[in-house]
């Protein structure tokens, strides 16, 4: 049994909230710089240059990259040998969000009830996905999610006969519909298989993957490459004004599914695809 205190979790989560909102991981910032050098559409090129400057200002002046500092999403992998002391893990994560968003000057974008809509004023509660694994480590992945792009995400319950072509059409149709609303260049997370909710969680997980890598499954790696090319041929471009940089990357996650189904979830993210990972 390894003990991990709520206090250390609160502190870690608060730091992650600020870090993710001020700095992008290298795979995403690297993709931005590469696209800025390669884009040929003049307005697209100008927008990518603005985004590079924006990133630089965010880091230098301590201003969030984007004003939508998101709803706080966590993927928590907890070793079954871990014992949390001093309170509940969920409360500790929410307390960390409260602290990070308040002390870090991040925007409070959460309302208490989807219909009554009163702001909770501290960006809680977070959306937390738990996974219990062997071992004694606690791994936290924080992925704040802006809603300009979240709102453009889609879930399709395809038929097995739709096959890989159906999957590709579904992804392209979601990206086409998202267009300028999702602050392109986008980053796309796709979940294929499982059930209705499993596909959506897979798609969100995919967004936390390294965008410069590909799936370990050869047929999925090929699908990622083919989809990225087709997405970048859509001519949505930076800001939606045309160009070949419609997406920086796409990652696909899969899971076994039912004989009768082919669920496909497309989680759209913008170029501000933020995350921070810590292991305690």
């Amino acid at each position, binding site marked *: 049994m390894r003990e991990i205190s709520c206090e250390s979790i609160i502190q870690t989560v608060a730091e992650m909230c600020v870090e993710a909102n001020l700095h992008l991981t290298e795979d995403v910032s690297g993709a931005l710089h590469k696209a800025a050098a390669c884009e040929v559409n003049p*307005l697209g090129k*100008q*927008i990518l240059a*603005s*985004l590079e*400057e*924006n*990133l630089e*200002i*965010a880091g230098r*002046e*301590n*201003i*969030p*990259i*984007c*004003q*939508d*500092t998101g709803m706080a999403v966590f993927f928590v992998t907890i070793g079954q040998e871990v014992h949390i002391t001093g309170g509940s893990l969920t409360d500790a994560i929410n307390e960390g969000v409260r602290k990070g968003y308040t002390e870090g*000057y*991040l*925007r*409070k*974008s959460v309302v208490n009830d989807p219909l009554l*809509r009163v*702001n909770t*004023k501290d960006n809680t509660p977070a959306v937390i996905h738990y996974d219990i694994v062997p071992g004694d480590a606690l791994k936290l992945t924080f992925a704040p999610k802006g809603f*300009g792009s979240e*709102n453009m995400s889609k879930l399709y319950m395809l038929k097995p006969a739709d096959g890989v072509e159906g999957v590709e059409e579904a992804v392209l149709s979601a990206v086409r519909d998202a*267009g*300028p*609303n*999702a*602050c392109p260049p986008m980053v796309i997370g796709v979940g294929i298989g499982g059930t209705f909710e499993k596909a959506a969680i897979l798609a969100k997980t995919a967004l936390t993957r390294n965008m410069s890598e590909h799936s370990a499954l050869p047929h999925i790696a090929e699908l990622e490459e083919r989809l990225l090319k087709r997405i970048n041929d859509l*001519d949505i471009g930076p*800001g*939606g*004004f*045309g160009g070949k940089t419609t997406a920086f990357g796409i990652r696909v996650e899969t899971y076994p599914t039912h004989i009768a189904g082919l669920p496909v979830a497309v989680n759209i993210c*913008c*170029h*501000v695809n933020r995350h921070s990972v810590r292991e305690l």
Partner: protein
Amino acid sequence: MTKQINVPFSREEAKSLRAGDYVYLTGTIYVARDAAHKRMSEALAAGEPLPFDVKGQVIYYMGPTPAREGQVIGSAGPTTASRMDKYTPALLDLGLLGMIGKGKRSQAVLDGIVRNGCVYFAAVGGAGALLSMCITESEVIAYDDLGAEAVRKLKVENFPCIVVVDSEGTNLYVRG
């Protein structure tokens, strides 16, 4: 074409802008997003005055992060305009001249833009840190309780945006 213009601007100036123009705005603009639009629309329905006279003005769809000590405003980029579509035609008919946001608009808004000779600009989505540098003053003028969604009056200097829909209805998002 790159243009420098002062805000507020006249209807003639609004009509002179063309989809695709890269414009730097200097002057005063107002900020309102979802919850503020809902309240303004309720005020109109109840025959009450709006928190500011929209006539001849530009509204920026935005909800900033809080300012740190010594900063005018926090990150301050555009939000998706389509969520305001339901409330916008009424404001255009009341004299609102310009809107700054990002993303597509409804047909009713596009019609309102042409009917009234207005303009819809996009600012670069996800460039909130950069855009905050062009804001020299920020004051909450109404609905303070809405936090990030309060109505603000901003002074901007060389605030960059792109004309997406011009007064003739030409739409930069529609190509090919």
